[in-house]
């Protein structure tokens, strides 16, 4: 290592290959990695978890009475969905998550946990940060794939619908439906989302060292308290949301609407203004402003599979 020529970024002492773009901008990539975790992903998570928390809050009678709004959760989701160019936000988020995840995995491979011999708190946190990173990645992917993209993962078919076939509010019901599908789903959400929370809160703490904001151990201890506070708050939101989703009583008409949507839902896609497209007849070609999530060829097939798979899961 000398200051004139950069090291190869492959991480090997013995590598002597010409420094690539990554190697030349190594530091920038590492800093962007840190930043991408905190700002886009982290801030989104706070909003998201806070929104979810409403599912429980709104079930508490006196809070419910405070607002002139029966379904706060629905309201907030509708608000988010009403944001213009939500697609760009989504693309931005996915790029940030993808970037953060790919580099994160690469960096994780470079380290080797040694908590068996060095049982220090920060060392456990180091290991946990990497474990929760992987958990978070899997969780976010599955979470979005099932709810947002409405994938059927081997019978796990718990899509999310903001509105029913006739535009009726469905946010709370469909969330509750998804999490009530099986206790494992709730457990998965609990572990996954808490993993995300830990990863973010601890990441916020280490980022302050990485960027050189908190210098002394005393400053780091103070910042640690703040990060822990944020983490606990988000953890409360998370647990609250999961509890709320489990305690919510799905009304018969909501159930019917969900089932209707699940049977044909693969053809739906929320438009930018928050409204569902009208239901398409089988075989009918989608229009430009209202296209199905999946392409035509797979759409029909998926519906059949979904029907077959979804039924037994939801009869309980």
């Amino acid at each position, binding site marked *: *290592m*000398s*200051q004139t020529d*950069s*090291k*190869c*970024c492959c*991480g*090997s*002492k*013995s*590598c002597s290959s010409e420094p690539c773009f990554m*190697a030349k901008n*190594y*530091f*920038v990539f*590492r*800093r962007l990695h840190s930043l991408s975790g905190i700002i886009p992903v982290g801030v989104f998570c706070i909003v998201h978890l806070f929104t979810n928390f409403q599912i429980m809050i709104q079930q508490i009678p006196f809070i419910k009475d405070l607002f002139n709004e029966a379904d706060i959760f629905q309201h907030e989701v509708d608000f988010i969905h009403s944001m213009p160019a939500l697609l760009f936000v989504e693309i931005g988020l996915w790029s940030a998550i993808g970037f953060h995840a790919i580099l994160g995995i690469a*960096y994780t491979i*470079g*380290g*080797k*946990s*040694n908590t*068996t*011999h*060095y049982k*220090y708190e*920060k*060392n456990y*946190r*180091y*290991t946990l*940060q990497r474990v929760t990173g992987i958990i978070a990645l899997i969780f976010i992917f599955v979470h979005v794939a099932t709810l947002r993209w409405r994938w059927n993962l081997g019978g796990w078919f718990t899509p999310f619908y903001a509105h029913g076939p006739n535009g009726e509010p469905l946010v709370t019901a469909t969330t509750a439906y998804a999490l009530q599908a099986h206790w494992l789903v709730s457990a998965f959400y609990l572990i996954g989302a808490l993993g995300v929370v830990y990863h973010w809160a601890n990441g916020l703490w*280490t980022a302050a*060292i*990485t*960027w*050189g*904001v*908190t*210098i*002394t*151990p005393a400053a*780091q201890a103070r910042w640690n308290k703040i990060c822990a506070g944020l983490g606990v708050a988000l953890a409360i939101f998370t647990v609250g949301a999961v509890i709320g989703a489990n305690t919510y009583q799905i009304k018969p008409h909501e159930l019917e609407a969900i089932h209707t949507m699940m049977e044909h839902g693969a053809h739906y896609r929320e438009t930018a203004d928050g409204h569902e497209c009208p239901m398409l007849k089988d075989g009918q070609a989608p229009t430009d402003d209202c296209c199905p999530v999946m392409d035509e060829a797979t759409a029909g097939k998926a519906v059949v599979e979904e029907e077959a798979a979804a039924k037994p899961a939801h009869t309980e």
Partner: protein
Amino acid sequence: MIASDAKKSFFVKVKRQDSPEKNPYYEVFELPYKPNLNIISCLQAIASNPVTVDGKQSTPVVWDCSCLEEVCGACTMVMGGQVGQSCSTLVDELIERDGTGTKDNPITLEPMSKFPVVRDLFVDRSSMFANLKDIKGWVPIDGTHDLGAGPKEDPEAQELRYQLSRCMTCGCCLEACPQFSLEGNFVGAQVFGQTLYFNTHETGASLKEDRLDVMQQAGGISDCGNAQNCVEVCPKELPLVEAIAKIGRQTTVHSIKKFFTGKK
């Protein structure tokens, strides 16, 4: 000492390796117990009578040591799974901490795992010294001519530099670091401490930019995973976490400055 409950002997299991190419193996030795023995004394006892518990005539264990008072940094090794200086690690401490020392559960002595083994417990730490060359670990004086005193220094700044200057290149911080590995290019806490040490000196700071360029590369400051084991195991209690954070700050500022005003 009360004779009746005094321990008569204890057992030590040493990881041996005859040369870098050979496979490692273990040997167990029985040693007479005395209170306040350090690990060096164990190895000295083995050297003067290298016979294993199985009665096999072996060779003296090879290890690196010099001052025996925890200031030269030579005798680092892994004892009972944890890295430290074998001069200041006492047998009693290990027996109490790990419950080892018995025939079935002897005290293990192993070489550091993050450096190439030369023989037995003796490892090659030359990379640590080479890294000091890379960061230009010196104050660029104009020569040894009589040019008067150095810069005045605030006692607080001196205190920080003094603490950092106590780094004895022992390698504990690197051995305990989950990010540092034998194959990888991460330089580890020792280098960050030394970088800060020179960057903090008025004359030494004239090479600050060069040092920070090195810190920005792969294997530099941004590969730190903040496990902070370094500061836990450092026998000299160097403010390594502080050094890492400060170098983090300096590189952050350095890269922004370079982006806006850099010529290259």
